[in-house]
């Protein structure tokens, strides 16, 4: 079943076209990757999905409901959660309070603070932030902030989770932890749309990948197809990546 579909999505900023006639469909339950060079319009596309920017042209549907013209908070309550690229935690609040906001306002159900708190603690334990729940935001590390972003999105009980470069700035071990966690969320039935520069991660977790270049879709397919797609290599991946990838594969084969 289709969970999210976009038809001919276009976004103009003044004279600049950030996203140009992009079509895509995301199946329920899949992990859908979105890659492309900087300024390709990936984050803009995400902003169109959750309504931060109004759509200039085209249509978008979530589980059959038209999203055009809805405000971000309405879209969130339909079941689309989002973790931001640059961590946008509320700085003057504790870790717990940050997640609590999502729990209180992010779902259709109206909850009292006690219930919200319980859910919050559950989610914090899930992402491994339980011991740090009373820390203020400036006191936790970047990796923890990424986890916090994830927790804030998860607590809203989303059907579709948008992850915007949550891996950026993490080391290999942390990336692997986070990949594991994303798989776990996905197994619980949450569809995930992920934007990522860390190729290893995006190649490793996505079922399908879409490549954007200057606002246009240039490829869509399985990770393997993408990695071999010549246009993608020309515009995005580059020779060294292919070489390195080959070396890595050769190495693991040898092992």
């Amino acid at each position: 079943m289709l969970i999210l579909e976009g038809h001919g999505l276009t976004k103009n900023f003044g004279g600049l076209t950030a996203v140009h006639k992009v079509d895509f469909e995301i199946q329920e339950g899949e992990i859908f990757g979105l890659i492309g060079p900087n300024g390709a319009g990936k984050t803009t596309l995400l902003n169109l999905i959750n309504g931060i920017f109004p759509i200039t042209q085209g249509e978008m549907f979530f589980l059959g409901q038209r999203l055009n013209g809805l405000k971000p908070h309405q879209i969130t309550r339909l079941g689309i959660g989002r973790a931001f690229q640059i961590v946008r935690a509320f700085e003057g609040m504790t870790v717990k309070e940050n997640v609590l906001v999502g729990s209180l306002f992010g779902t259709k159900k109206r909850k009292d603070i006690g219930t919200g708190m319980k859910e919050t603690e559950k989610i914090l334990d899930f992402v491994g932030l339980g011991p740090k729940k009373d820390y203020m935001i400036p006191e936790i590390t970047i990796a923890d902030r990424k986890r916090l972003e994830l927790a804030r999105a998860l607590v809203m009980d989303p059907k579709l989770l948008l992850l915007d470069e949550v891996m950026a700035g993490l080391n290999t071990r942390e990336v692997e932890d986070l990949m594991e966690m994303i798989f776990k969320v996905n197994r619980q039935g949450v569809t995930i749309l992920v934007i990522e520069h860390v190729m290893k991660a995006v190649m490793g977790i996505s079922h399908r990948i879409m490549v954007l270049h200057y606002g246009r879709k240039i490829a869509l397919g399985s990770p393997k197809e993408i990695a071999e797609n010549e246009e993608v290599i020309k515009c995005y991946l580059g020779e060294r990546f292919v070489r390195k990838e080959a070396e890595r594969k050769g190495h693991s084969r040898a092992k």
Partner: protein
Amino acid sequence: MVKVSRKGWLLIGGGFCLFLLLAPFLLRGYWIRLLTNMFMFGILAESVNIIAGYCGYLALGNMLFFGLGAYIVAVLMTKFAFSFALALIIAGLGASLFSAIVGLPILRLKGQYFIMATMALMELLRAITNNIPITGGGQGITLPIFPGGAAAANFFFYYFMFGLMVFAILCTFYISKSRLGYAFRAIRFDEDAASVMGINPTPYKTIAWAISAFFTGLTGGTYAYWMSYIDPGEAYQIMPSIKMYLMMVLGGRGTVLGPITGAFFIEFISELVWGKFLELHFLILGLILVLVVIFTPKGFMDLLRRGLSFSKLMAGVKENRV
């Protein structure tokens, strides 16, 4: 290093409250008026705190609701013979309603644009007040004197302002612990992120401003009756607005008791300076403000929380220095 335990704070606070409750029986007229004045600024700082401290919208022209409340009470009492109580309630609600109406377009503005819009709104209201006959224009309005002599008036306004302040504190306390409070703070720190987390900012911002306007309007109305004369220049002033921010920031932005502490501190210090230095009071008050801002940029509440010590003070200075 001065550090007081939680119990100590409760004792100090309780004692102070008891003192305030009994003060009219212990003190002479001037001190009662001074305290009443402190309460007034306490309420004003607290109401600014709701919109600016919690919700992050720096409504520098918040005194516009003060003027509005004062004029509603004045006009209703003199021209339509309303009782004070009724007029005051209308003033509070009127200020709230007005904030909601103008809030819809203005609360969309961000940062300095919002600051400026509220200031312009205050100027606009002043200009309108000057030009409509029912307010007496630039001549001002004189209100009936509170019946029953000096002592009765002192008692009445003292306890009235005190009650209003306690009401404002309780209200802020409730907000800080409720859904509203979380929504306000989320909006303050990142409005886009808040809306992605399911908060519709518009109604929450409007509510915050309406609550703030409600208290400011009530204070203005009480002030008009208390002073028994107002004119537009007195009712709509920029300087008290700035002073309210000073109080809020010194006490602690976004804390329940901070603005009240700040208000008490500033009013008390200015009173001392005023009384002692006839020719130099601006200079000395200015110096004190400058030093306080340099040494406690995060407010007293923060300082008390971290404990008062010289090295902490210096660390605060170092942090903000270029």
